[in-house]
């Protein structure tokens, strides 16, 4: 297996996965819960996310090559590897379905209003399957380019939005109590748990042992970006009207208007966001296919690609009948599932590795 994913590329993959989903529903959720102190809730989530990154980083340091599940099988046995493989596969399948639907929902809501959702979802998944089919190296390049372009677009929009920010909107400080912060931090914490993707990407990384470093930077950068997004939403809109908006981060960008010649700069950032969504779905599909292939010992990979493509498209269309259900699930149900699934799987792997460390040491000594 080619190890051609640099640390920077791996970091951008994690950042794109966390931020692209966060931009849509996070501001409304966090600001509704913590009002003017919403940005503090993101920082609180960041602290927990960094601790989680250290835990995952510890697993990365013990990694000894080959496919992630194959390595786990060597250390923990076939049953454990299959259980972890199934848990992670389920997570990537559900996460993929949710992301495809969120992306599709936004496009049908805001841009291609009359185009059937099935057509958009199919296009999104087909493009993403193509990205994932190109393998780890190509995805690394794509994510790096997408990240850099997105940052340029963020910079342009931030520069123009600064004039619209009212610092009074952040006052009074520290009004939200701890429980409000905990409630507000659940969704960002769920998003930050996407950092677990690094485990599946380990076989493709040039330096898998640097996983902790990559994750710490990724969680830090993602949290800073999300904090900036939340801060601009509060700075421009305040905290009251945001609670009634579905996509406040996008609405904020629409307000950029200088004279009658500069407006609709949101299109730049939306382009970056769409690229990030395609890339995220691509890398999640890649992980899903890798995990299922190994867990279920599937040989006919092209057939698996076809089945997964059809399943993801069908589930993303059929799982949510109404957009309200999707938003509720995106903001409340799914983050809890992501949180529990990712954190418990990582904790399980870490504990199992810790318990079997003496056996592994003895085996290495024998070798």
């Amino acid at each position, binding site marked *: 297996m080619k190890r051609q994913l640099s640390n920077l590329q791996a970091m951008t993959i994690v950042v794109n996965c966390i931020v692209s989903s966060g931009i849509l529903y996070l501001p409304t959720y966090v600001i509704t819960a913590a009002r003017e102190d919403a940005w503090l809730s993101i920082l609180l989530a960041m602290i927990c996310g960094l601790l989680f990154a250290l835990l995952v980083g510890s697993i990365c340091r013990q990694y000894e090559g080959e496919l992630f599940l194959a390595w786990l099988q060597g250390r923990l046995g076939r049953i454990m590897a299959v259980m972890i493989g199934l848990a992670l596969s389920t997570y990537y399948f559900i996460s993929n379905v949710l992301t495809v639907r969120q992306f599709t929902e936004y496009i049908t809501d805001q841009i291609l*209003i009359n*185009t059937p959702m099935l*057509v958009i979802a199919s*296009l999104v998944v087909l493009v993403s399957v193509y990205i994932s089919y190109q393998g780890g190296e190509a995805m690394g390049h794509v994510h790096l380019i997408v990240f850099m372009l997105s940052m340029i677009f963020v910079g342009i929009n931030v520069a123009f939005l600064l004039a619209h920010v009212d610092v009074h909107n952040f006052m009074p400080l520290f009004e939200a109590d701890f429980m409000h912060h905990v409630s507000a931090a659940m969704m960002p914490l769920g998003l930050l748990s996407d950092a677990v993707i690094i485990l599946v990407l380990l076989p493709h990384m040039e330096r898998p042992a640097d996983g902790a470093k990559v994750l710490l930077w990724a969680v830090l950068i993602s949290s800073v970006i999300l904090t900036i997004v939340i801060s601009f939403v509060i700075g421009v809109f305040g905290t009251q009207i945001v609670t009634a908006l579905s996509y406040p981060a996008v609405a904020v960008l629409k*307000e950029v208007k200088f004279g*009658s010649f500069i407006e609709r700069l949101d299109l730049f950032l939306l382009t970056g966001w769409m690229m990030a969504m395609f890339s995220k779905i691509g890398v999640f599909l890649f992980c899903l296919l890798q995990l299922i292939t190994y867990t279920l010992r599937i040989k006919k990979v092209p057939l698996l690609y076809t089945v997964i493509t059809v399943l993801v498209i069908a589930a993303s269309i059929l799982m949510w009948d109404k957009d309200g259900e999707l938003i509720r699930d995106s903001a409340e149900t799914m983050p809890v599932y992501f949180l529990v699934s990712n954190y418990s799987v990582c904790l399980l792997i870490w504990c199992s590795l810790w318990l079997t460390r003496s056996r592994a040491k003895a085996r290495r000594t024998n070798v």
Partner: protein
Amino acid sequence: MMTWIRKALTACCCMLVLTACWSRYELNELAITSATAVDREGEDWLASFQVILPSSISTGIGITGSASGSPIIVYSTKGKSIMEADQKSFLESPRKLYFAHNRVMIISEETARRGLNPIFDLYLRTPESRETVTVMITRGSARRLLEQMMQIEKIPAAGIEGMIRMETQNISMLRNMKLYQLAMKLTSESASSLVPEIELSGSEEVTSMKVFEKTTLPSKIRLGSSAVMKKDKMVGWMSRRESLGVSFITDQVNRTVLTVGCPNSPSSSANSTVLINKSSTKLVPSVQKDKLTIQVNIKAKGTLAQSECKTHNLYDPTAIKQLEKELEKEINAIAKEGWESAKKLKADVVGFAELVHRKLPDKWHSWEQDWDTTFADIQVNVNSKVNLTNVGLSNKSIDVNHIRDVIK
């Protein structure tokens, strides 16, 4: 050969599926709306649209140019909701109304008094509408303002938007209020806002291009006073002077003009006019015996633009000091008038609720439930400080007789 065929087939497939064919609209199927007006007729909504006629604005320079027809067309539709009225436009137009270039929304006084919630809902819900549209209120019918032509701008909506933008920059009596800003203000703690008034001066409405053959128009669009909104309903009007007072209190004066009488002048008709170039306001709330007092400190810098005060030697610091004192008195009076008007209408357009929430959060939580009572009981003290930095290109008032006498 096979590779070439495969690539060509892929390209064809992409062309077929990437055209967004379900959602596409050709340019010649769209009616570009530059302004909208909302009136009420009984329980129905009357939505009017000022639609640009591209063929009429594409040629010539100036309002008339070489095209003979009107650059706009106005039509109205009625429905139980604004959206229903909007959709009924298909009954009388072959084109789909396109709101991405909508600059101005004019709301009739009756509509504003009955509530703006349906308008906010529509604009914040539908992806095609723009929340950056400028909102204005007019006495009487809103539709007739859309029909009015302007001399200097081909598209009246662009002219109206330009007018309010220039007014906000240069006089600061009225504020250019975007729809999202209005929604923000009305959902804030103070739940009140000012909205600029637009009106028609004169008698006969200018709805035909023929009137442009003359140098003056029988009527024209102009900005009026300010409508006062509380929650989602209009509760009254504020004069331009009172509105400027609110702008001073809320620190929204970019530039403005003040005319004051000459200090110690026996002639009451002699005035000095000062252009205020910079103004900043600091509000300091304090509580004494559970009563809220707000100290309004205004600092302004200005330039003397015109003086009729004969006794002034404008290089004399004492004369400048006296003029500054007069200006301070005037600013204090304007701010007080703005405050008194807000108090009378029981509308917190000065944003004191947010100020108290920010600076005195504990007190805010006890006053929040009955803010109207607390608001009516606030003691406001205004203190302004004016610095006249420039007297222009002359050290005294130009009075040819006086100058001739001095030379003799």
